[in-house]
């Protein structure tokens, strides 16, 4: 049944396809960065400072004469890493806590859900900013901190699924067969409870990319010399009036990539949850 729905939806949802294309191209650019880059992204070239876009430098060069196109290819890697790893962390935490809360209910549920309430009260950018600045800002810390502050919705969704699943007959049957709690949770509930995950995960990647670039733009994200779209924009701010290309292209890259993941996520929602299709 699923494949027909998927095929029909794929045909219908040109937006989803557009999202897939964008995400695919950006991932390809990130993976093939060493092949596609025309210059060393880190090597300054003082003879080629602030050159506008040309055949030699597709996107121009920055104040140190580094090739913007090559730097942005490597920046795509940073965005992709941050998106995937931080979403992986938030899925892990959210699924674990959601399963536990929904399955054991009672005090466990109460504690976990109050913890979720508390975390949801914080402006997450405040928390992220404080923690990243305190642990020295680097790629790993950023990924971990974004993951640690974005798992709450996953936990709620998985808990809701688990709550309804645990009363279903096949779970009772498994319990009567003598399956342990752990085996019921992992083998029977988990595979059924993660239905909403693909959508949340895809939209989460988009959110994480935006947060990373904002942090890097504030100077507490990915640090020199590693290029990220956010810190290229930060450096470009100094020469905003004379080198527009440094401020235009990285921002466009963020916009298009985030747009791609959002389109993909919305499209997946239409496929997986036709009730919500609008």
């Amino acid at each position, binding site marked *: 049944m699923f494949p027909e729905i998927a095929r029909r939806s794929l045909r219908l949802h040109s937006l989803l396809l557009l999202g897939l294309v964008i995400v695919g191209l950006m991932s390809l650019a990130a993976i093939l960065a060493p092949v596609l880059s025309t210059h060393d992204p880190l090597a300054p070239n003082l003879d080629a400072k602030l050159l506008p876009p040309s055949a030699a430098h597709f996107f121009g060069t920055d104040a140190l004469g580094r090739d913007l196109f090559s730097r942005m290819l490597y920046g795509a890697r940073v965005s992709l890493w941050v998106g995937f790893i931080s979403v992986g962390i938030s899925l892990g935490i959210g699924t674990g806590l959601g399963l536990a809360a929904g399955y054991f209910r009672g005090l466990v549920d109460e504690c976990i859900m*109050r913890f979720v*309430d508390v975390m949801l*009260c914080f402006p*997450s*950018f*405040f928390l992220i900013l404080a923690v990243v600045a305190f642990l020295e800002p680097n790629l790993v810390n950023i990924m971990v901190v974004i993951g640690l502050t974005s798992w709450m919705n996953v936990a709620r969704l998985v808990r809701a699924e688990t709550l309804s699943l645990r009363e279903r007959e096949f779970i009772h049957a498994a319990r009567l067969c003598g399956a342990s709690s752990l085996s019921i949770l992992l083998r029977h509930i988990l595979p059924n409870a993660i239905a909403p995950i693909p959508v949340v995960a895809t939209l989460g990647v*988009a959110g994480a990319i935006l947060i990373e670039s*904002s942090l890097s*733009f504030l100077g507490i994200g990915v640090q020199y010399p590693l290029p990220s779209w956010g810190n290229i924009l930060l450096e470009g701010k100094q020469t905003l009036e004379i080198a527009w290309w440094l401020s235009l292209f990285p*921002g466009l890259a963020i916009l298009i990539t985030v747009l791609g993941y959002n389109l993909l996520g919305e499209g997946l929602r239409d496929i997986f949850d036709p009730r919500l299709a609008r």
Partner: protein
Amino acid sequence: MPAILARKCLWLAAVFLGITVISFTVIHLAPGSPTDLETTLNPMADLEAGKRLADFYGLDKPLPEQYWNWLKRLVRLDFGNSMSSDARPVMDKIAERLPLTLWLNGITLFLTLILAIPIGVIAARNRGGLFDKGTTLLVFIGFAMPGFWLSLLLVLHFSIELQWFPLSGLESLDHESLSPAGKLLDLARHLALPIFVSTFGSLAGYSRFIRSSILEVLRQEYILTARAKGLPERIVLFRHALRNALLPVITLLGLSLPGLIGGSVIIESIFSLPGMGQLFYTAVMARDYPLIMGCLVLGAGLTLVGNILADACYGLADPRIRGSLRPAGGS
């Protein structure tokens, strides 16, 4: 009813306690100490000075004791003194910065709603039409637009090239010499771009939400009744459908608070506006523990209050749920 109220108060107390625990541990578990800048990083300071500073701020005590002392002062609304050189009470520092952030976000929310409601209604009415497709495209762009980049582009075009708006700050140099109307205009010119950027950011979510909410309501039978009565479409849409469609927006308002407060860090840093976001940013950079904890508790506390207000308003606006108050944000 009293039982519900008691449960609600208990929930509130538990969540607030949780907020203080997180605000405290997040900072104290990180390596380093707030006095690092004055001691280990300062070649003029010796070990003795470091010890005296730690003693002065109570940093040599065990963490649970530090937390308990901080909490005891917190319940009396005493957030302690800032660790920066002026050592003023954290409460005063926040109090002078908070109004600007609240005003900015208030105006943003107001403009967002004013624009999002008609957009959402018209898009829902002409579902699949040109207007709907156009706004859907705008919504996706709005979701994906990095606010700081949009600010950068706007500053480049409107402040640098056209010189319509000032680059940053809250007042021009000659602000004091202006007439009252001139002062207001000056302020408006400084705030125009920041407000535009944050309104653009939240407009996407709200108009999309209102659109699907209206679509949901339009399916119900009382709308069919209203149409069958021969009421003009305008009345059906804006009087009958909109009222019920706006109910979930109340909850959305409460939920969007943390995002708005968090987002103010970026907007206020770019436009050098002396609000709470900028205060928090400088506090983080200076490792001003009491100020950071104060901002975290207050930021989360504001969200908590916002959610409770949203819940109360929901109860007032929708008689159906009045008897069954659920805990705010409960799932």
